[in-house]
């Protein structure tokens, strides 16, 4: 009986926690502070394409994208076109992977991150609202604020090798949006390490 209740409860929690962002619907609004102390709201970027990247350098999948330079290249390529690229770190302070704003600024520099901003999501609010599960987990939001892509960054779930050889879903999504075309792939299974939410 107890187990059944726990299961039911879990079911409720899961649906509650992740009755989150849905592809084809408007992306949830959020307000967050970046590592430089500035506030960002999703609605600030209405009219621009927004890419969210869930980040945790301690995860080998994520680390591989940075170590090879592939992630930084993609960030530079897309921000040059006017895309807003937001790095979201939802790791809770309970975990060693957590970065204080100061440590984060150091990492930003040493990793040569080319994104628009690094949002501090240690509370996990953005993560839970969007249903972020892994690092890296990518979200592409169009100029009207609709979530058009959610899932893996590419089709190569591996902690090694060169991600440039893989088919990149984020680049494809942005290209299609700019051309005004329909996306072929709107949802894939994200890979990587689990996001370390606190409780």
């Amino acid at each position, binding site marked *: 009986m107890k187990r059944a209740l726990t299961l039911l409860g879990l079911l409720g929690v899961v649906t509650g926690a992740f009755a989150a962002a*849905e592809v084809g619907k408007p992306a949830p609004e959020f307000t967050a502070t970046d590592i430089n102390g500035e506030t960002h709201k999703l609605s600030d970027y209405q009219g621009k394409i927004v890419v969210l990247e869930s980040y945790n350098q301690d995860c080998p999948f994520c680390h591989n994208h940075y170590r090879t330079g592939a992630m930084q290249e993609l960030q530079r390529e897309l921000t040059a076109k006017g895309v807003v690229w937001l790095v979201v770190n939802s790791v809770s302070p309970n975990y060693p992977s957590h970065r204080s704003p100061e440590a984060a600024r150091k990492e930003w520099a040493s990793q040569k991150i080319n994104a628009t901003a690094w949002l501090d999501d240690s509370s996990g609010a953005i993560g839970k609202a969007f249903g972020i599960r892994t690092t890296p987990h990518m979200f592409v939001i169009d100029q009207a604020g609709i979530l058009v892509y959610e899932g893996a960054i590419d089709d190569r779930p591996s902690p*090694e090798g060169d991600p440039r050889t893989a088919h990149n879903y984020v680049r494809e999504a942005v290209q299609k949006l700019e051309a005004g075309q329909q996306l072929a792939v709107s*949802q894939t299974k994200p890979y990587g390490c689990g996001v370390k939410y606190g409780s």
Partner: protein
Amino acid sequence: MFVRRITNFLGVAWFCLAGLSAEAAHTEARLILAAETARPGDTVLAGVQLRMDPRWHTYWRNPGASGMATKVEWQLPAGVKAGTIQWPVPEKLPDEDLTTYIYTNEAVLLVPLKLAGDLGPGPLDLKASVSWLECDLQCVPGQAEVHASLNIGSEIKASKDADYLHTWQTKAPKNGEALSARAWWEGAGIGKSRYLLLEWNSAAAVSEADFFPDASEDFEVQPATGRVPAAPGKFRLRKEVKKLAGDWPRQISGVLIQQSGPARLAYEVNLPIESSPTAAAVNTSPAVATGVVAPSLWKMLLYAFLGGLILNVMPCVLPVIALKILGFVGQAKDEPRQVRKLGLIYALGVLVSFLVLAGLVIGVKAAGHKAGWGMQFGNPQFLVVLTALVTLVALNLFGVFEVNPGARVMDAAGTLASKHGPAGAFFNGVLATILATPCTAPFLGAALGFAFTQTAGIIVLMFVVVGLGLASPYVVLSWQPGWLKFLPKPGVWMERFKVAMGFPMLATAVWLFSLIPLHYGKRALWLGLFLVILALAAWVYGEFVQRGRAHRGLGIAAALALLVGGYLYAVEDQLRWRSPVSDTALAGSLKEGPDGIDWQRWSPAAVAQARAQGRPVFVDFTADWCLTCQANKRIAIDVPSVRAKLKEINAAALLGDYTRLPDAITTELNRFGRAGVPLVLVYPKNPNEPPQVLPEALTPGIVLAALDGAGR
């Protein structure tokens, strides 16, 4: 400056050194073999052992919401082939709300290695590259090159790790066939979310159950599991499926977990997903699980036609056919066109009856009750009526009474077989159909089994084709009047033939009567007495009403009185035919006599239990009204050689009694593509192998050969 260079160099050197060992930071990988020496052609069990530090874990073949499954890339010498990995049952880790399937402490991934028959003697170096992701609070990818040495020689020599590997074999999920698991969608789903229901048989009380799905790119089974009420003996789970791309999946595979008391059992299943529970009840592709290949439609139609043809010579149909011949002989002198017409009408009678049967099957199927082929004979009231009917027909053939042309439908019972002309031809067709049903001939079995798992349209088609097979000889004869030449000329022998045909009909009545005690126990006596009263009434009617000249009214009254009185007293009051005796559950052994086979009652749990004990299992699905089954039993099963063989291989003998058409057996029959009995299965000793389905017509040779294979 210099110091920094040294530290950098040392740091790099340290990294290189760390990479060389087969240990990542927190997991150790090793390759173990169950044999030191093996012969060419053998299969050697290998195990990739992963030993993890406390708190660190690696992942299952479906890692879950995050993580990565362990990969094994073999570098094997020529002549050695690696099979698929048998993954031990993982733990489900609900971490916050992200569920993963992991291994902690120790996990051994078992891989069977097949050695070619032409391998030369000597040592072989077996290598593999294992890569994994190990996680605690952080994740680290791991990689190791493992190897082991195997000697090829003239005998098998187990290694010191053999027992250890066999222990891990028991931790791998078992084959889930015996569970008769089904999967179907709960509804059409909303957007990208749809609920899946999984149901399986479970004899023991289940405290908890779960389903670990296999990974897919196009959909994701959510981790939460809901329990849904199910019929006793069954367990039902509900899982949400989220679609990522493409259409909704048609197949679901994974591991069913069942907790019964202290035992945690796991079963591999690979199920087609049906759209509704009644459709799910008749599994259309048991191919993978049972090794029975789903035959093509044309082949099945051919079998159906042949089956219909063969039905003509079945003992329960033959007397009617003989009567049909009489009709032809009588008509042969008349216009050929009339004969042709009658032949076609006979065929029409058969086809219409089959269509009615098809409609009945579809209706019953739709009503949710699983229909078996001999369903009419399982219904006690129908049995009583049919017995009485056939008795009357026999009496009519004996000449006890006649039924005049133009008699009403109520009198059709006695009229049917002996009527001439179109109506007679039609009812001959109908009667032939009714009597054919319990005789599932060899070809017919598989064909009908196929039909029952199909849509309504195909069911109708199948039944029509069987009907055509049954009717075709007469249509042919009616269209080739020339061949009627070969039929004998009419004469006094016809009348004698007619009376003689009354005897097979009487035998059919006796056989039907033998099925009565199953439903009514000792009360069956009263049906017998009623039949005698019926005969008396028939004689009174024939003698005084039809053949008599005076006292006609008295004759009718007497006959009616006998009929009604007999019915009210014998059938309603004493026989109580509306309330058959309920199934008395006979516990334990169904052994017949001291040397007989020690039959136990069949159930999916009994099969699973025997297989878990490593015993081969011999399953016989039979029914008292199934003549082929009884023949098989007498000729090929209950014979000394088979009895001895069963004892020799320590096989469990399970009897599935289908006489009353229990649902559980109907489901099982459908799984193997059969609609009715007989069905004989031989499950081999190795619990991972599927059962062997024996042909419908058995010989001792066939049975012994199958048992031999199973015992090895």
